[in-house]
Each structure stands twice: as C-alpha cells, then as structure tokens.
C-alpha cells in the first residue's frame, strides 16, 4: 500500500520546524527569505532532534517552535463554525499531535541532516525543497510551503513526495466530522483522546 505519508510528513515537519526561530521581518516575500526561514527553522529543529535530551524534553523544546512558526489550516470549512474557544483548543491539540508525529519518526535518531534545494513560487507562497537524511534510512524529499501573508514567514503546508499534510489532515478531520454530524466537540474529544493515548506508556 502506498501510504508513506506519515513518516515523510513528520520528517518534513522536523526539517521545517527547525527553521522557525530566525523569522525574517515583514517584507515582500522572496525566494531568499523563504530559503533563509526554512534553513533557520530546519537547523533549530534538527539541533533539538540530534541533541542528547530525553524524548520528553525534545517534545517540550519542539512545541514552541511549531506554535510560533506553523500555521496549517487543518480544519477547512469547519474552522469558520468553531467558537474562539474551540479554535484555541483545536490549535493546542493539533500542535501537540504534530510534535508527537515528529518525535515518533525521528525523535530517536542522531545524525539527522537536511539540505535545501530549489525555491519556487507556489501561488502567493514560496515552496522550498529539502532532502532529509537519517542514518541507515532512505532519504526523502519534503517541500515546505512558506507563506508571508501574515507579515512573517509561516509554514502553511508540507508536501512529502506528493501528498500535502494540510490536505490529508483536513480530509481526515472533515471525514471524521462528516460522520459525527459536524460536531467540533466530538473532533476535539477525539483529538484529546489521541494525545492522551500517545502520552500513555
């Protein structure tokens, strides 16, 4: 079955997440800005992953990186009908799920590296190609979609050799909501359950 998405996405996120700290100031988006942003975000994330800290500590360190620099529209049309409280809760849970997803895939590795390739325009955003390598594992390509619309660079999507994390997640959640009468509370409950289950030994 061709469903390599989760590992690749998570690895991609790792690379993207590491770049977030040194965000470029608000100005017209350019390929150079996007490259610098992904490079910086990637370095930060990889530094955390390659460190000698425990997995729990790594998770704590990665979370603020994602909160600050990832803005992924994973809820689609349901975002508009969610209350502000539900939106806040959703974002908190979603970031936690992203962190878990990243650490599941590369948290235990040492010597993860990434290289930046082409940068191209993707609609109003910039698409930055990266190759992520882990020891003893096949390298994979991840493309980071960086948006400057909010004034500072944000990762709005990660494409791992085809599938978009944003679209896949959105369709996952939309399908779940469609089967639960569109109840945002049911979605939040399920996400919460997922995070709790992940924390359990």
């Amino acid at each position: 079955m061709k469903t390599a998405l989760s590992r690749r996405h998570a690895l991609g996120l790792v690379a993207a997440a590491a770049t977030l700290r040194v965000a470029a100031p608000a100005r017209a988006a350019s390929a150079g800005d996007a490259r610098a942003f992904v490079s910086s975000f990637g370095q930060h994330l990889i530094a955390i992953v390659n460190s000698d800290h425990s997995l729990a500590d790594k998770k704590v360190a990665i979370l603020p990186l994602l909160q600050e620099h990832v803005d992924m529209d994973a809820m689609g049309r349901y975002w508009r009908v969610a209350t502000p409280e539900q939106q806040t809760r959703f974002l908190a849970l979603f970031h936690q799920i992203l962190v878990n997803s990243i650490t599941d895939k590369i948290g235990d590795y040492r010597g993860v590296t990434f290289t930046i390739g082409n940068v191209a325009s993707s609609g109003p955003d910039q698409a930055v190609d990266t190759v992520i390598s882990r020891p003893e594992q096949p390298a994979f390509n991840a493309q980071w979609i960086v948006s400057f619309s909010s004034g500072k660079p944000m990762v709005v999507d990660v494409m791992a050799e085809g599938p978009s994390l944003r679209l896949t997640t959105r369709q996952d959640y939309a399908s779940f909501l469609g089967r639960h009468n569109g109840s945002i509370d049911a979605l939040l409950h399920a996400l919460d359950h997922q995070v709790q289950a992940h924390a359990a030994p």
Partner: protein
Amino acid sequence: MRAVTGSNLQPSRSCTPARRPRRITRLFAGLGLAALAGCAAPPPKDPDALAEYREANDPYESLNRKMYDVSMTLDKYSMRPVAKAYVWAVPYRVRQSLGNMVQTMNEPVVFFNDVGAGRPRRAGDAFVRWCINMVAGVGGLVDVAKYAGYPHHDNDAGLTLATWGVPSGPYLFMPMLGPSSIRDGIGYGIDTGLQPFNYVPRGYGLLTFNWAYNIMGMINGRADHLDALDQLQKDALDPYATIRSAYQQQRKAQAEAIRNDHRATVPDWYN
C-alpha cells in the same frame, strides 16, 4: 496488500473452450458494475459538503469502507505478522537487496509504460537500469544503476492512462490490493499483461521462481510500510479517509511528474 513494484501472478492458461468463461466473466463484470451503481451514495445538497464530496471522489464509500475493514482485518492476522517476522528475521541490507530485485524485475513494465506515455528519456532510464542491474547488479540484487546516475522512477499503466488524459474515475478500495481507482484498477490488469515474465514458457524452475518472487515481493512490500501504516492507523482519526486522500494526491503528483519531464533524449554534453 499490493506489492508496490512486484509483478502479478497470472493463472495458468486453461484449455477449456473460451466462449463460456468469457460470457460468465462478462456476466460477473456486469453484476459488479450494477452492484457498484447500487452502492453509490447520492451527493449532498449543501455547497460546502458537496465540494468535499467531489474532492473525495468516493461515491462508493460505503462499499469501499467495507472492503477496507475486511482488508485491514485480514492484514492484521496475516500479512502484518508475517511482515513483522520477516523484518525481525532478515537483516536490513538483505531486505533492501530483495527490494532492489523486485524493483529491477518490474523495470520492463516501467519501460513499456514510459514508452506509452511518450517519455523516451524515462524509457531509456528504465531500460538502462534493467540492463545494468541484471548484469552488474547480480540479477537485480544490487541497485548499481542508481550509482551510475539512473535512479528508479515509478510508472504503471494507471499513470500512463493519466498522462493520456484519462480521468481517474471514482476511488476504489480493492480487497488485499489497497487503494485504487477505476482507471488504476484497469491499469493494474494492463501491467500484468506487460510483465514479460508472464509469457516465458512455464518450466518448473520458472514457475517456482515466479511464485517465490511474487510472494516475497508482497511480503517485502508490506514490510516496507509497516511503520508508516501503523503510525497512520494510530494518528489518523479516520484512517480510511487519510489513506484515500494520500493515495489520490500521490497519484496526481506522480502523473504530474511524468507530464513535466521534458528532458532531452540526447546526452547532456551534447546540448
């Protein structure tokens, strides 16, 4: 589960008169289509929900979900434990070599499809890969071609049809074969016909090899996706929808990559 790059088993030719079986096949095909048509859910009225329904392109969702559940249950008690045991018993490098062999044996199918898609440079790559790996790579066990500058690329008849502009048709989840579509399902059948192995006279050695190769290819293919599939089933709220989305996007991206490959067939130094 579908062996990603493996060939497909072809039942031995029967000597019974062809007419009756063909009629029966047609009857079953007709019944199958009628069953599919009966399973199609009516599209929703709400514009947002309708957009989502169209994006999913899955009018036979209820039937597909049943197929998914059956496949996953079967997988849980058959392929998954076998694949886990295989990973436990066979070292990574050996598994990688066997994966290389499965991939090399499938290169002729890639080659024919590259030709069909009108991409001579890609066809040349697939041809050279097969020649190099079969000789220098000891029957495909070592992917020497990759180091010689000819990395593997995917192609199959579903993608060739896509480059011809054939739409995917509704999504299908095929039992034990995994995610597919009407077009890709037809492509799967065409690929079976394109695999030269299936035309070599059936000596006992070859028959044994073909069985071993196909079974090994299936186990190896499943083993490659052990972690990814486990993760997906743990992380997704609706694994069925997640697999559907990822599959559809991946097929679109693969077809796009073939369409956008305009490399010249002359060597780079000639330009």
